[in-house]
């Protein structure tokens, strides 16, 4: 299981990194593994606003739907449209297949480092 060091992680298994003042958000390797083969992702629209932990997207596998929670509060500036036709990229390369970019107005106070997240997953087992 992969835990890139430069990213921050949420308890609900999203990752976040800051890039040129904008937050880039995606799903962790653990998340995509738990979800199984992803068949579709429902992404928000540019300009949509969300608070910390708000559901901003959902992911469909063949037999289930899972909510994705926002690891920060702010406004969506870009969505990864590629994923709409090729959701499998989330399974194949979860740290490259970013979901949305967000202009952050509110930070979460409980994001974890790679080590903390790895330990968190261990403790949840």
């Amino acid at each position, binding site marked *: 299981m992969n835990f890139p060091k430069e990213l921050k992680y949420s308890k609900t298994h999203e990752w976040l990194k800051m890039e040129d003042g904008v937050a880039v958000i995606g799903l962790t390797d653990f998340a995509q593994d738990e979800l199984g083969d992803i068949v579709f992702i429902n992404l928000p629209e540019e300009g949509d606003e969300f608070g910390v932990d708000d559901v901003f997207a959902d992911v469909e596998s*063949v037999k*289930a*739907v899972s909510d994705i929670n926002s690891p920060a509060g702010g406004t969506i500036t870009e969505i990864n449209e590629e994923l709409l036709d090729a959701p499998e990229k989330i399974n194949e390369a979860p740290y490259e297949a970013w979901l949305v970019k967000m202009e952050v107005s509110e930070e979460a106070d409980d994001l974890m480092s790679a080590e903390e997240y790895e330990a968190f997953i261990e403790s949840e087992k």
Partner: protein
Amino acid sequence: MGDFIVNTAWEQKQMCEAIGVEKPSDLFNGLPEDVRLTEPLNIPEGKSEAEVLSLIEDMAEQNKVFRTCFRGAGAYRHYIPAIVKNVTAKDEFKTAYTPYQPEMSQGILQSIFEYQTMICEMTGMDVSNASLYDGASAAAEAVMMCRDRKRKTIYVSETVNPRMREVIMTYATAAGAKVETVPACSDNTTDLEKLESLLAEDKEAACFLLQEPNYFGRLEEPQIAEKIVHEAGAKFIMACDPISLAVLKSPGEYGADAAVGEGQPLGLPLGAGGPYIGFLAAKQDMMRKLPGRIVGETTDHDGNRAYVLTLQAREQHIRREKASSNVCSNEALCALTASVYMAAMGADGMAQVAQMSAGAAHALRDALVEAGMEDVTGGEFFNEFITASKVPAEKIEQACLEKGILSGLPLDENRMLWCATEVNTPEEVAKVAAIVKELAEGGAQ
């Protein structure tokens, strides 16, 4: 009394022993005393098969079946080829469950895939679902699926079948959705100028539903409506009679976003109102918004072609309260009926049905006008039209009933909505015209 219980008393005793109870009723001991019935149901004793059939035959005799029928208004009498009934009577189709286990239901899944394809062909759309309960509820689902966070108001033409409009209103009222009715002109088509002005003022318009041919049989101007609706950024939905689509321009050709309608004319009997079938088809970009079941094609690990229920993550059993619709079953056997009908008739056969229906209706109109009625349809129609007369509509209906004819539907005191199909003959037309003539000449005081 039949009960279809195979196990004998002795077998039941053995089963009780295996379970560890003395008698079957012991298994109900967990039920609280005061909810248990203490007396037998107040319904008759069970009857033998012969008695049951006799009772129901008595009821059937209290219904009048009209061999000559000139009534439509949402349910149509067409000829049903014998092969259609034969195929749908097969036990494997009739008594099967929903094909959730694809490996043992390829026959059913493939038949639905074929149905979906045929509906796409008739409507000119890219994707179709596996069907819904009836045309009216399909229309309600269609307009509701066009709503999103930014666009919420539903527009429906006044010329849409009133029963379809009522069901739409019912669904909308439940959900708290707003429905606006676009009025008709005096020629019984939609007032497109009014549509334009209503949409110009409403940035939240989600969709507009137009019926073609409309409730009064009139041919509307969908190509004009389409431009208006799309200018306003809303979705354009057309409700159609599937038989008419064999010769009339399809919703796809008109640029519609979705097509719905009552599929009963496709091989289903009038059946006193049901079961019928609602078809719902749409353009590719609306595929994931479609309610109901959808069958998709795929392969198994050996590369064999295989069919499965797909895109299930839209549906209630997965999304639960986040589902956009609660639809669980489709009308599978009715969808099978419709596909067999469309295959049996073929494009040419259906065009023939459409042309004969239109021909019969126009001939009926001419005959009724000659007999003294006024054609108040307002313009070009397909196979339904409206007459007016000084003779009260109910009086005409009654006179026809007495001669074994189901006349057009009385719309109000004087107007009637008539329909003709390929099943009507020149003799029938002459017969009903004669009745009307007699009333028109002698009758009206």
